[in-house]
């Protein structure tokens, strides 16, 4: 049955007072009613900022997510999953019992040989979590991490694997995780989009990434991720046209408001009020985005800690600092894509370069959030769309989906632990297996959401991030 529409109702009964109270027919009263539409009593809220959930389903451990997506598929066997048996088998035929009938990407039809991990591992921190020694900075915050060594995915090609990792489905048009969070929880900022995507590219192994990965799918497009560009303007069309100063732009927006207000006196349409509000927010964004991009307030020590070579250079390091700034400003979902890990060949060298670009900044981000007291309510996920085969592919490794590693940190995560394991060759996840739906369910749970209950009706179906699957993995949660 059609829900009662409080805005329309409010407009209808308050029309007179609504029109007289505000200067040009629109103003705070309109905002109030728009806020009312979303089911909340908060009269100050702008329309962008509220989600559909009236109250959290579960205790809220994290308020925002920073997803450091290592696009291309970093090799778990070099980074988080030490396999001495595999090292011993290096160069020899890979046992067919593991690979028979399994999905294989570029190694289709090739002779399969084991490839031992290229780097040494070290036990880090008090927890003694085993992590590669080419990740000294991530290692140094090992006590904050929960390394999941038993993740499984279903998709073996990049594009579809990203889609699955982001939306829980390869059915096209499913909303991505960030859109779900925004839809459910709303944003905590009125000056910035609630879901922001930053991309950076490494020196090798660069895989393309499609903008549909941050699409809102069947959810309204206001929930889509907004990509900050590394070239040109950070946000499309954020700058005034050349030759239009900020005071002129303000005049324009005021005039638009007045004229729309005159229109609203004759045409009672809540969309007009919404549009006026959106122009106000656009104007705010025009000053908040440059302020956001301006790293002047960051100390030289901070810049150095992240390993930023040049401010605003679009590097992963620069994006990590940006992620912290976005988190501070109340952005709900911050997703960084670093395209560097598709190491079919030249793995050793690619790993060294990847580590140089990623390790320091990741470590710095976690430490920085911790020092600012923000790690407690920020959920960090670090990982790729899949892992890489324990079989070698020339000088590299192929795509691998049957078991790989990611780590989580921050809000509600059981810090200084590992969860799950793969078999002795790092092929199949065998202990405490976590699939992508489980990971999603757990992340939503940490955000206070029961994944069964965040859904939207589409074509008669209840669409969810976790589809009809997913279980919350208690072992990851503190």
């Amino acid at each position, binding site marked *: 049955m*059609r829900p009662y529409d409080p805005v*329309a*109702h409010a*407009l*209808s*009964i308050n029309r007179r007072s609504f029109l007289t109270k505000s200067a040009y027919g629109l103003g705070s009263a309109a905002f109030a009613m728009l806020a009312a539409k979303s089911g909340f009593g908060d009269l100050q809220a702008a329309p*962008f900022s509220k989600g559909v959930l009236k109250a959290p389903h579960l205790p809220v451990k994290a308020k925002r997510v920073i997803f450091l997506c290592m696009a291309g598929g970093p090799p778990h066997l070099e980074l988080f999953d030490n396999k001495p048996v595999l090292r011993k088998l290096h160069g020899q035929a890979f046992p067919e019992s593991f690979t028979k009938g399994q*999905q294989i*990407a570029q190694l289709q039809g*090739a*002779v399969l040989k084991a490839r031992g991990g290229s780097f040494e591992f070290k036990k880090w921190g008090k927890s003694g979590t085993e992590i590669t020694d080419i990740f000294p900075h991530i290692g140094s915050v090992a006590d904050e991490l929960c390394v999941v060594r038993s993740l499984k995915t279903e998709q*073996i*090609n990049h594009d579809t694997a990203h889609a699955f990792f982001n939306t829980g489905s390869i*059915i*096209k*048009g499913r909303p991505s995780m960030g859109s779900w969070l925004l839809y459910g929880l709303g944003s905590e900022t009125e000056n910035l*989009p609630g879901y922001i995507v930053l*991309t950076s590219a490494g020196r090798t192994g*660069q895989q*393309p*990434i*499609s*903008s*549909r990965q941050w699409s809102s799918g069947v*959810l309204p*497009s206001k929930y889509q991720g*907004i990509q900050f*560009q*590394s*070239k*040109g303007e950070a946000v*499309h*069309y*954020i*700058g*005034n*046209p*050349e*030759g*239009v*100063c900020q005071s002129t732009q303000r005049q324009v927006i005021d*005039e*638009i408001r007045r*004229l*729309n207000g*005159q*229109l609203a006196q004759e*045409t*009672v349409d809540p*969309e007009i009020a919404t*549009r006026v509000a*959106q122009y106000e*927010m*656009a104007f705010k964004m025009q000053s908040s985005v440059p302020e956001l991009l301006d790293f002047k307030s960051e100390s030289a020590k901070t810049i150095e800690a992240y390993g930023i070579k040049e401010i605003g250079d679009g590097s992963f390091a620069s994006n990590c600092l940006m992620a912290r700034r976005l988190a501070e400003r109340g952005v709900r979902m911050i997703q960084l894509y670093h*395209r560097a890990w598709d190491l079919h060949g030249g793995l050793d060298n690619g790993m060294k370069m990847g580590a140089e670009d990623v390790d320091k900044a990741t470590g710095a981000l976690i430490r920085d959030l911790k020092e600012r007291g923000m790690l407690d309510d920020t959920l960090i996920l670090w990982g790729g769309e899949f892992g890489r085969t324990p079989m070698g*592919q*020339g000088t590299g490794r192929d795509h691998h989906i049957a078991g790989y590693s990611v780590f989580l940190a921050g809000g509600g995560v059981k810090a200084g632990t590992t969860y799950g394991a793969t078999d002795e060759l790092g092929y199949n996840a065998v202990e405490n297996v976590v699939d992508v739906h489980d990971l999603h369910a757990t992340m939503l749970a940490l955000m206070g959401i029961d994944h069964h209950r965040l859904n939207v009706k589409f*074509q*008669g*179906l209840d669409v969810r991030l976790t589809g009809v699957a997913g279980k919350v993995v208690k072992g990851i949660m503190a």
Partner: protein
Amino acid sequence: MRLSRLSLTAACLLGALSASAEKVQFNRDIRPIFSDTCFACHGPDENKIKGGLRLDSLEAARKGGKSGEAAIVPGKPEASEVMKRLRTEDPDDHMPPAEFHKVLSKDQIALVERWIKEGAEYQGHWAFQTPVKPAVPPIPAGGNAIDAFLASPLAAKGLAPNGPAPKATLLRRAALDLTGLPPSDADLQAFLADESSEAWPKALDRLLASPHYGEHMAAQWLDFARYADSNGFQSDTKRTMWPYRDWVIKAFNDNQPFDAFTIEQLAGDLLPNPTRDQVVATAFHRNHRLNGEGGRIVEEWFAENVIDRIETTGSTWMGLTMNCCRCHDHKYDPISQKEFYQLFAYFNSNDETGVLGEFGGSGRTRAGGNTPPVLSLPTEEQQQTIDAAAAKLAAAEQALKAIPTDQPEAYADWLAKQRAAVSKVGVAWEPLANEKVSAKENAEFKRLDDGSWLVSGGTAAKETYVLEAKPSGNLLTAVRLEALPDDSLPNKSLGRASNGNFVLSAFEVRLETADGKTTAVPLVKAEADFDQPGWTITKLAPIPMAKGKAKKPSDDKAGWAIAGNEAKNRVPRKAIFTVSPTPIPAGAKIVVVMRHEAVSAHSIGRFRLNTSSVDAKLLSLKTDPAAENARRLLAKPTEQLTAADRKALAKLFADSPEHPRAQAVAQVAAAKMAHDAALAAPVTVMVMKELPKPRDAFVLLRGEYDKIGPKVERALFRALPPMPAGEPNNRLGLARWLVDGKHPLTGRIWVNRAWERLFGLGLVKTSENFGSQAEWPSNPELLDWLAVEFVDRKWDMKATYKLIMSSAAYQRSAAVTPAMLEKDPDNRLLARGPRFRLPAEVIRDQALWISGLLVDQQGGPSVKPYMPEAVWDETSVYGDMRNYKADTGEGLWRRSLYTIWKRTAAPPTMMLFDSSGREVCTVKRSRSNTPMQALSLLNETTFVEAARKLAEQSLRRPGDADARLAWMFRRVVRRDGTPAELAVLRKGLDKRLATYAADATLAPKLLAQGLSPLPADLDKAQLAAWTVTANTLLNLDETVTRE
């Protein structure tokens, strides 16, 4: 099924029913409840039935489940287990279970109870019953049949409909709805001046006859067709499908009936003697994405594409969402998984692989292009060129045939002459004998007639070739390596890397004596006739040798490469490896080892080796190997010639200019080249081409391509009418079944979408879903009447638009009263005219039209308007669509449906205004209202330039500033501004005039936006100030809204 008359909409049923005596209806009242809360476990999906109970038919519900209790006893709610389960407080027994998170309201439970009490009559899903035309109720004054159906629900609600909208508003509404552009000045004046009753129908006829109608209708159809200019997925390369877009535009403009429109797109290729256009139409089902990622699994993507066709067909024509059926029976609709794959069988026999074509060699998927089957579309001129070239080729071949191949006398002369010449020159390079080649990994070798080796097979990251042979002569002074291009190699180049390059990282020579002992032959020098910068051959020698084992080169990256990634370098290359002169004992073998270890999978694709016993100082890279080979043959005494030698000599003669056929052969070659070029010139489009023998189809268990289930045959859904008699059981029959007039969905879907286009919401709000989860129609009789009327009018789309737009309902003013808002907030009863934001394309096109910039040219290839810097490169530098450069001329100002569409980086402004991403079929767009839209309209070059041109036009109008402002206002929203509105604009304009006069540096900056010329005669400060005011107008709610 005849839908019963309703005086109320579903929206207010609950409240109304409790007080009314009207009987509860299963479809309207109960099915939505059961479908939402019960059917997931007690519905059509056989595999998910819990407790053995189904509630989707009375028979099953009576029988009950495992518990043996009748779930429903008609007339007796107290005896019905369903009621007990709904009402019980016991959490173990309560339905739906708590973990399902579905709760029925008290009203809903009461409704179920009443329905049981009244006899629990089930009905088949309304949308699956062929509509029967209801009688038209009395037609209200000033209205048509449509108003007749709308009248009584309005009256029942006590709502008095609005009168007609002001004429200017009305014409703008109709023009934007039908053509996507505002009405022209001439149309507007004619309409305002015409006070006759014919004014409106005439205006509609003018709009329907406009060529812009076809463009505007096509924009939505391209969403359904998932049209794009790129292949999608990882490399997202170019494809050429615009001829299909042109076909769609023309079909709409020609008012092709919807049945023919459907049949041609789904099965034009299967029509008897199809015309070219009918085959172009089948591009509809080639518009899906094609995966070109390395490591893709062909069978998987083949299945994905066929499934995409099923889902697209289901959504576009039937409003059915079937993607869940790929894995299991439908949860809500009577469609089984088996039926889904029976439908699969209609679409799986296209003559295709299922993945992106490999352009320019195996594994090449980054160059872009059209994947077979394709249709070539020569223009008339091109066809003439092709015909002429074909005639020339035939004539040349005829001429060649006339000259005998066997020319013994000429041959003898030629041979004598050649031998005399050769005796004066020596032979520097000798061929190897008894060659054997092997690979360390998985490459395979084939010896060609010219003594070269062509490599195929696997492309391991690191590969080593080992050649063993018997050298001629008894001294080894040098080895020559020739790398040769071949058509079978990537880009027809020399190397096996996907770009056509190779990197040779080591070249080792050994001698193996008859006793099996191997000695390394040290290299002294290496030189090549071409080196890729940074990859010179000198790095290969000298290589320190120890006991026949090469030391690992110190620099991993060292090697000889030939830049085969560039087309100009795909020519034969030579390298000479000088060795310290080594005597060759009798019976010894030479072993050459070629390593490719520097760069992954960069091995040589075709090569030939020769040895020399001549003093190395006499050897030159300039020697032509072919000529040398010929010399060698000619030097041999006749009696020593082998059969192969004789054949080779005959070939030399045949290829020589002295052969009597030589000229004719050259002419054939030239004619063939011209013919090939003529054939390659026309644009192509991907089309459907049915295989002579259909492929088998199977149920894919859990929807996975590699889990093959039982074989299935082509068959239609049992829940829908059967195939019309006499139709073939293929795509053509399927298409005709959709439009035979008895199909319950096709007509309803189309008229509902037409309604949605004109009223903002369909009569069925869930226009994307007509399955059992569909919303109950707001006016079922009207929906059915329209659907049958559409078929009766022979699927005439223009006539049906005109019919709907001739209703009083369409023409109503959008003014709202509080009573209306309260009683019908969503305007489902249509007491007022609807008001909604324009689609993405229309917002941009309207701005171009208002400014006078719009280039009114129809059809043709896609164009590149302004887009943000690096719009294609932010996320990908693969493929051939990168480094976006906007056009510099007319392409900047064409209608938006011609904008080039790269799927992974779609035009940002279109996406911000809720355009579909064109990844897959999208039948409904959202309509959002965001700050990003404001930023785009305020700041994007397209809109700033449009404002500048609008300002320029305004300043050229007669009269003072106020008169010009009034004109500008009218130009933008097509009505006169009120004094209050114009006053606001005037005040702002004056402020800006002062601003730009005060700072002369500002205006030139603003006016530099956009490439359209800047008039020299207008004052810059004036023009800038007016530009900002024009921009203000382009941003008004009214401007981006049609009301």
